[in-house]
């Protein structure tokens, strides 16, 4: 990138950041008075409100805290039935509703974390520790998140505590295979102004033992089962996040976040290479600077939101000097206003200026512009029936982006004091603009690609009950998704090139249930998540024998079971997650077996002078020491033990 482009981005960023925070300076001096604890207005909840009928679930602070010394992959495996393809800890990609990893956007504030070059996020590099809430939107979410949200979206958010004083939260854990995690969060403020400093350090030598599939010793002619130890698969991730918040009034906030992340890992070698070339090492380092700031005022009839941010992504393969870097400046804003008696309208924009610097591009000196305009309308009929209509239109440099509408309804067919049934329906279009690599890689990038586009139909129902200290939730959804112009890289005969190759039909059923039974001094919680997903290639420009057959690395069945028993200060947990067999290529061989892993844990809380609070946790993952594989030819760890200690200073 040229210095001129960098300067332009920085200038625009500074200008809009100052614009969004200008009102902070105005009221800063006279505001350190109140200390009323309020629940913060969240941007994500707004997204849900205008998407009637869309399937949106939340994982809350308690659920996240349980696994916050690990990556978001563990969180999703623990509490959802979303398929994830991974190796032994350094690479993890999501397969939401049968789609590919770059069909799911991962968002923090207005920043889509997905790589602009590859199009997807490595879930192993997203620390759960920095976040207190995860919003999962199942199915098409492009109308809210823009490009890339064909299969779904993950929206991570952190919360300010608005403490009056100082609060410290820290965690240390050690685990098998030389795993160490150290994290701390320091909250300081006066209930009007809040500062949160978070950092974490994660290291894992990852030298677990595993069993090879039967291997032939050609010297003796015998088939042998070799027990081996994984070499050169270490992971070292670390990050710092600083947040500031200022509360003008109850629903008028300004927030600022800067997040520095450095993720290094050795690229795990396949099992045969690990056995025969144990000295082989390769490594990859991803460095990120992410800044996001926003101002919101929800306290008036005209609700306003304005955000701006900057992102620098830098990927370094094997300590080479070939740059793989992108810089982005982002700004977005919206307004909401009530219309008619029961209606609400919302309009907004998102604008990004992108400057790539990738060794294989010829457009490194050219700024790329992406603009999205969107509008939403929500109307409530008869005080019950909610209908929402959304539309979004994007404009991208040298690229035509499709118009994206969505229509949704939700209706409570039963509303009683202790129970309710809500039926939902939603139809939404979605799209994905090809990645920079798809368009500009030399050779093979194809600037004439069509955007991938999809349409998602969804119906569902939720039954909720709270009676006699028993709460029950049952959520059942069925979906049908058609994706056209799915982009793959194919061999043209001269070189590999990106093309719109295939169409895919994905459909399925998702069940989420949980029941909580409160006893005198304890409670019991059970949960079951199950996904039945048929995802098939309906057409392909490639000669494929896998037409109308399940896609690779998409299991038919995915299930998680979790249970919890809490009594006094003790907690006991058991969870099971499993997937059925999976194809790994377009042929009827090299099929991964299904597996189910059982994990258990127990924790004990104790406090000292009611101010110093501790929680000691002991986990056992893969209790039955099952040898399993998530990617063809790559080993996964067997039984692992973990001990962690959390400390909270109030």
């Amino acid at each position, binding site marked *: 990138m040229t210095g001129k482009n960098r300067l332009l981005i920085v200038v625009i960023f500074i200008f809009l950041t100052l614009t969004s925070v200008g009102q902070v300076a105005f009221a800063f001096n006279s505001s350190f008075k109140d200390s009323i604890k309020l629940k913060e207005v969240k941007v994500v909840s707004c997204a849900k409100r205008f998407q009637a009928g869309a399937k949106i679930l939340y994982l809350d602070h308690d659920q996240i805290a349980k696994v916050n010394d690990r990556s978001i992959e563990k969180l999703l495996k623990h509490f959802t039935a979303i398929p994830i393809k991974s190796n032994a800890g350094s690479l993890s990609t999501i397969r939401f509703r049968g789609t590919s990893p770059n069909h799911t956007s991962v968002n923090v504030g207005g920043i889509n974390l997905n790589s602009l070059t590859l199009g997807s996020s490595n879930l192993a590099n997203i620390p759960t520790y920095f976040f207190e809430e995860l919003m999962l939107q199942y199915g098409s979410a492009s109308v809210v998140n823009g490009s890339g949200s064909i299969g779904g979206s993950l929206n991570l958010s952190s919360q300010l505590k608005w403490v009056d004083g100082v609060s410290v939260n820290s965690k240390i854990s050690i685990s098998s295979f030389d795993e160490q995690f150290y994290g701390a969060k320091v909250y300081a403020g006066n209930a009007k102004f809040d500062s949160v400093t978070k950092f974490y350090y994660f290291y894992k030598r990852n030298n677990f033992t595993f069993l090879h599939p039967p291997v032939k010793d050609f010297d003796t002619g015998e088939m042998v089962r070799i027990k081996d130890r994984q070499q050169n698969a270490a992971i070292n991730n670390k990050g710092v996040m600083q947040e500031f918040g200022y509360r003008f009034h109850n629903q008028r906030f300004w927030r600022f976040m800067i997040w520095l992340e450095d993720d290094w890992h050795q690229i795990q070698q396949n099992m045969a290479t690990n056995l*025969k070339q144990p000295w082989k090492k390769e490594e990859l380092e991803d460095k990120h600077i992410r800044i996001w700031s926003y101002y919101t005022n929800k306290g008036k009839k005209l609700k306003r939101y304005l955000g701006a941010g900057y992102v620098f992504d830098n990927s370094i393969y094997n300590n080479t000097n070939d740059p793989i870097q992108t810089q982005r400046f982002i700004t977005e804003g919206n307004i909401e206003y009530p219309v008619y008696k029961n209606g609400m309208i919302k309009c907004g924009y998102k604008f990004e200026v992108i400057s790539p610097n990738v060794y294989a591009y010829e457009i490194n000196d050219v700024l790329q512009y992406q603009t999205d305009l969107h509008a939403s309308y929500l109307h409530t009929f008869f005080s019950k029936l909610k209908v929402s209509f959304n539309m979004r239109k994007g404009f991208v440099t040298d690229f035509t982006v499709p118009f994206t509408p969505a229509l949704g309804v939700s209706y409570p067919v039963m509303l009683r004091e202790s129970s309710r049934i809500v039926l939902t329906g939603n139809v939404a279009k979605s799209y994905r603009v090809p990645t920079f690599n798809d368009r500009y890689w030399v050779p093979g990038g194809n600037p004439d690609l069509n955007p991938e586009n999809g349409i998602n139909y969804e119906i569902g129902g939720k039954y909720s009950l709270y009676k006699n200290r028993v709460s029950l939730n049952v959520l059942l959804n069925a979906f049908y998704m058609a994706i056209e112009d799915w982009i793959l890289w194919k061999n*043209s005969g001269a070189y590999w090139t990106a093309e719109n190759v295939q169409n895919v039909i994905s459909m399925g059923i998702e069940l989420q249930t949980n029941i909580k039974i409160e006893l005198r001094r304890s409670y019991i919680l059970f949960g079951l998540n199950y996904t039945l997903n048929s995802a098939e290639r309906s057409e392909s420009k490639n*000669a494929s024998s896998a037409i109308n057959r399940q896609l690779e690395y998409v299991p038919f069945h995915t299930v998680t079971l979790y249970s919890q028993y809490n009594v006094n200060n003790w907690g006991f947990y058991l969870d099971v997650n499993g997937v059925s067999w999976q194809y*790994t*290529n*377009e042929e009827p061989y090299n*099929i991964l077996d299904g*597996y189910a892993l059982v994990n258990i844990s127990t924790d004990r809380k104790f406090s000292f002078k009611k101010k110093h609070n501790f929680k000691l946790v002991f986990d056992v993952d893969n209790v039955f020491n099952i040898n399993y594989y998530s990617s063809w030819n790559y080993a996964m760890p067997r039984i692992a033990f973990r001990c962690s200690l959390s400390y909270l200073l109030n």
Partner: protein
Amino acid sequence: MKTKILLMLALGITLFFQSCKDDTTVTPTEKGENYIINYGSYSGDKGSVSAYDTEKDTVTNKFYEGVNGVAMTSNPQYARQVNDKIYFMGNNVDQIFWVDAKTFEQTSNGVTSTDLVKPRYCVEDGNMLYVSCWGGDIWTDESLSYITKFNLTTKKVEGKIALPGGPEGLAIVNGKLYAALNYKDSVAVINLSDESIGYIVTPAVSSYFVKDDNDNLYVSLISTYSDFSTKTGIGYINTSVDKLEKIYEKENVSSSYVNIMAFNKDKSKLYVMASAYDANWQLIGTVEEFDVAGGSFAASPVVSDILGLNGIAIDPESDNIICFVSESTTASGAMRTYSPAGKLIKEYKTGISPFILLSTK
């Protein structure tokens, strides 16, 4: 009791998930003498071999696996018959492994070494197999590469000859090892008696050789991203004086690491894998015909518009042109046979990424 319950629960769930498995195996029923080498996928499926029986006009896939009972553990970058063995240059695992040329049985474990990193191609001289190796990430450090010496009797790596520039294809003539350098505009000439290295300067980087009846070499001259050149085609090296005597220019000669050049039976024609723009201005695979006696390329390709062209060969019996096709690294490829006039005769299904025909006849 709790342990038993947990165990039964885990077993039950595991059985449930495994009960749906659609397992398919392929068992070869015949042995062939022409073998199609399938590279597979570097990060996924490993390589395989298909047997091409020209008499029965059939291709039997998973031949190596059928004979040896297990799949390959490497992606073969090249295979060569030396006496009664076929040697494979395996990648990821980086190893040399070999099978009996008649039975295709592998009876010894492959050989790995820190002096055998990313092996590419090989050629034999007496008791020694010379193997070109990238030595690591050659695209970031051109000094990493070397020639590994592998003793065919002891089956051990016996050292290496440092050779910067990314040696790819190899040929031996009169005690000299010629190495096509893929990251330097030269062909290296190594005197095997004292391992001294000389260079023949070329107008582009090179990839592979074919040898004519006079032991002179045709070398492919290609343009790559890291070393762009407008002067591509084939060069003719007179090995008695080690000089690039002629350059026959041809645009878009393939830079793929597959078999890109093949003589017909009487060596009157040399077929070269290249590409040309189609109606949509997309580069698509072609086979160009070079008239050896006339020293010129035909005006138009003998075979054109082959999406996924991944190597060429000549049927040793019929003299038909063979094109290997691989559009992706997750699906089976194909072998297509064409008449010398370029007419499609038949297509056969192969393993993933076919790229070499190895004839042991």
